């Protein structure tokens, strides 16, 4: 296999990795916020269910969760899996898993807000919703950004776990080329791709952090 074809193949894999990455963030960031509300709910039943969910997501390997989501509908529901289900299952498993981690980050951020901010908003006439989205949440975002950056960078590397469903993301492709070429070169190239991908992500997050540095 020529170097060019290898790069093309890995590039295609990289695109599919980026797809997993972007869709996972798109779904897990809002879902995580919702989950964090459940975690802080006054209703004990909701709180307990969410607690169990978070503890299962954080306490079991993502690779098993991928298998469970992918094969679950067949083994439990007896449903036939469609051709598009593989990718959908990957996105669901990743989003649901990352939402659990994001939820705990949101919670720590929300709980660290001084009560005075809520009280000031209340006497100034802000509704509960406005208080959260105009006053509390923007400040929470700034507080949790470093932790979120950590998770996002982990996500870049975790996309490689999709290989357990043989989805042709970059790591799966690298393994296949490596087998064909009986060489480790493709892994080196893949590592470089991951590194560059992550460097770009880290740079982007740093820019966002800087943009929020206008206040302390």
């Amino acid at each position, binding site marked *: *296999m*020529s170097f060019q*074809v290898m790069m*093309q*193949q890995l590039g*295609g894999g990289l695109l599919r990795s980026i797809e997993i990455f972007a869709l996972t963030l798109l779904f897990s960031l809002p879902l995580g916020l919702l989950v964090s509300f459940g975690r802080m709910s006054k209703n004990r039943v909701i709180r307990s269910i969410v607690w169990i969910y978070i503890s*299962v997501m954080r306490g*079991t390997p993502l690779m*098993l*969760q991928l*298998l*469970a*989501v992918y*094969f*679950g*509908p*067949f*083994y*439990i*529901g007896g*449903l*036939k*899996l*469609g*051709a598009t*289900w*593989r990718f*959908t*299952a990957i996105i*669901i498993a990743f989003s*649901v898993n990352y939402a659990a981690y994001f939820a705990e980050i949101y919670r720590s951020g929300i709980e660290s807000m001084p009560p005075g901010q809520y009280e000031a908003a209340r006497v100034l006439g802000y509704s509960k919703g406005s208080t959260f989205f105009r006053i509390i949440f923007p400040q929470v975002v700034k507080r949790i950004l470093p932790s979120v950056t950590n998770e996002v960078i982990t996500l870049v590397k975790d996309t490689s776990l999709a*290989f*357990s*469903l*043989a989805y*042709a993301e970059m790591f*799966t*492709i690298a*393994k*296949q*080329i*490596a*087998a*064909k*070429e*009986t*060489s*480790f070169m493709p892994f080196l190239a893949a590592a470089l791709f991951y590194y560059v991908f992550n460097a770009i992500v880290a740079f982007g997050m740093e820019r966002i952090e800087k943009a929020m540095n206008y206040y302390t």
Partner: protein
Amino acid sequence: MMKKVLAGVLCTAMAVSALGMVSFADETEAGSAGLATDGKFVVGFDAEYPPYGYMDDNGDYTGFDLELAGAVCDLEGWELVARPIDWDSKDMELESGNIDCIWNGFTMNGREDSYTFSVPYVDNSQVIVVADDSGIESLSDLEGKVVGVQADSAALALLEEDGDQADLGATFGELQQFGDYNTAFAELQAGSLDAVAIDVGVANYQTAGREGYSILDESLNSEQYAVGFKKGNDVLCETINSDLAVLLENGTFDEIAAKYEEMGIPSDMLCLAESLGVKAETEAE
């Protein structure tokens, strides 16, 4: 196995959420000819298993087995879908109907109870690969050595307790499982493995692509490759069997085999003619 159990446990925990969010393909059970989806022949294979299934120089999936599957599709007017799978998950993929068959240097011996198999088409053997300078020349030299074997492989079944070569396996210092052959050969080179137990076709391919390895003359066994179908899917199995007979008759089988002769599948390994002949004889009785 452990993986399957754990996945099952997790399934129960997550089923509710998963089920709510899915749009499933057509629910009708197996279409005509035993295919999960009409007109599509979905072949599950390990894309890290040259020369039977792998990514070619153009980045397309090919291999001896996939080309045979392609020829079958040409006969039937089906579309071939070559679906790379994680080898550890092959049973789940087959059972759930994600793939119609496993066609990938798949050893039938010892697995007859779990799958419905086509006629065998390749005589395989499990062999031992060692580094040239290891000083290991026969199976008895493996006593106390660290031997690598792919997880969930035929070689592993052979050497494990209850396997046909369990006695030999018991003499090893350690039987080390690995995920893919690339890693295993790197370990062999680095000295953390003394030998690798492996299918002969793959061994031929791997040693041809690297310097300094050789295959022991004594093999562990002889066995056959066949196409594996979900247990009980006789309709599809019969279709493939008769197609293979046609491919043998019109020379397509030998044409394809010729391409892979240099890649680790010498013609003396082919056994389709023999097994079809044997079969014809038994039917005649």
